[in-house]
């Protein structure tokens, strides 16, 4: 099962919904890994969407056929790429050429949705008008509030900053601008006194 119900938290923490078809002439769908399942459900609700859909998909390394299944839908355009970061210039170009009325659907991990959301809002779409659906891993994209470095795919709390090496506590405090949660030093007052690592949401 690729869905996970996040417990209620502070208002800063993003909440995700279920993708619903919306009216519009163009539909941009961006998903990674199990996010593909949310796109399958979306297309099932409105099969007509697919003819006007531009899909950007980033399969997991052990993809079990999601990419093939998306291809079989024959969307208007399908891009399957190795990573989101490699596709950022492509996404920016798509948004630059897009017109109002474009519907944006994001599905998959929080890191992917957050970063794509930030590009779409920079392009001028109000963030409240962008749909999201979480699927798959609960790993987080974390920013170290001390050195500002980003550590991707954080699955434990605390974790070690991949840039400055501090032991960071995983907060629900989120930045839409940089699409990352904030990590704060957990042993600042008593260096070395680090609580045992726990898997997120375990």
């Amino acid at each position, binding site marked *: 099962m690729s869905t996970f119900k996040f417990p209620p938290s502070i208002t800063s923490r993003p909440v995700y919904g279920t993708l619903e078809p919306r*009216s519009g002439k163009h539909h941009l769908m961006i998903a990674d890994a199990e996010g593909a399942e949310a796109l399958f459900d979306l297309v099932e609700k409105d099969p007509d969407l697919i003819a006007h859909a531009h899909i950007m998909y980033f399969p997991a390394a052990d993809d079990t056929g999601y990419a093939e299944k998306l291809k079989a839908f024959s969307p208007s355009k399908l891009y399957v790429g190795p990573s989101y970061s490699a596709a950022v210039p492509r996404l920016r170009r798509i948004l630059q050429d*897009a017109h109002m009325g474009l*519907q944006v659907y994001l599905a998959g991990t929080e890191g992917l949705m957050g970063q794509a959301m930030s590009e779409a809002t920079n392009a001028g779409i109000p963030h409240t*008008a962008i749909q999201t659906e979480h699927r798959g891993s609960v790993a987080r994209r974390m920013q170290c509030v001390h050195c500002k470095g980003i550590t991707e795919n954080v699955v434990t709390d605390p974790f070690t900053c991949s840039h400055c090496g501090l032991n960071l506590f995983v907060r629900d405090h989120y930045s839409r601008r940089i699409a990352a949660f904030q990590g704060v030093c957990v042993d600042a007052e008593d260096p070395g006194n680090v609580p045992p690592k726990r898997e997120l949401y375990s």
Partner: protein
Amino acid sequence: MSAGTNKIGVVVTDIVPLNELVTRFKFERADGGLLPTFSGGAHTVIEMKDGETTRLNPYSLMSDPADRHAYTISVRRDDAGRGGSLFLHKNVRIGDEMVISYPVNLFALDLRAHKHLMIAGGIGITPFLAQIKQLSATNGRFELHYACRNQALGSYVDDLTTAHPNNVHVYFDDDGQALDLENLLDGQPLGTHIYICGPKGMINWVRDTAERLGWPREAVHYEEFLAPQSGKPFTVKLAKSDLEFEVGEHQSLLEAIEAAGVDAPYLCRGGACGQCETDVLEADGEILHRDHWLEDDEKESGKKIMPCVSRFEGRIIVLDR
């Protein structure tokens, strides 16, 4: 206290008839000082002492928001209205002292927009005049589509087309010119926001078309001032103030509450802002909801009323005021 009830004493320093229906009024501070700054789309509430009645009508400020020496408004004469615009047209003279409110903006530009697409109908042009001045000063990207009856009644058509020949598009109804809305909305770049000010039909047309084409609600802004309508007189009781009085035929409920000496909250006086929302404790009769603030279920519940524009028909209405 209401945010919009800070008052300024002003003197009328210029009156310019623009055409058969519209006249422009200029106000400067009576004490010679500077007026508060405002942002494009703001309105002021003008106090008019018409015999025994005091009218408070909102008008969009159309002058340059950066110019603090004077405010100007343009008023369309409404011969069938309750008399506010007629009073301004007929009774106000250069040199008269008047009282106006601090500016309040319920129709501000969203400065996150990459482009501002303005759609005006008739006298709905006025807030855009101030917004365009504001955007021109900051090199903002805008496009105005302005529909009016004909050249003679098209207030500021010449000024606008001369100052902004590439950004202003005018449509004269009498010449059969009409805005091709669907085509206009279809090609707009991402980050465009729509602003509509005009008759209700136009606002609904643009909002519906934008929604169908997939525009986000957050990118569609509109302003429609409802003028309070006349109606049958009725009795109102204010529970907290322990007062009971009649609301006259040509008086709004809010005006009657004020005339009774109760300081009730308000901002737009046009059914849009929600400031004057009041709880109804009892109503022996029917509430005539005319605002576009309350949700349909709130209107049906009979527990809320917007006294600036809504009325009552029946024996008595009791308000929590």
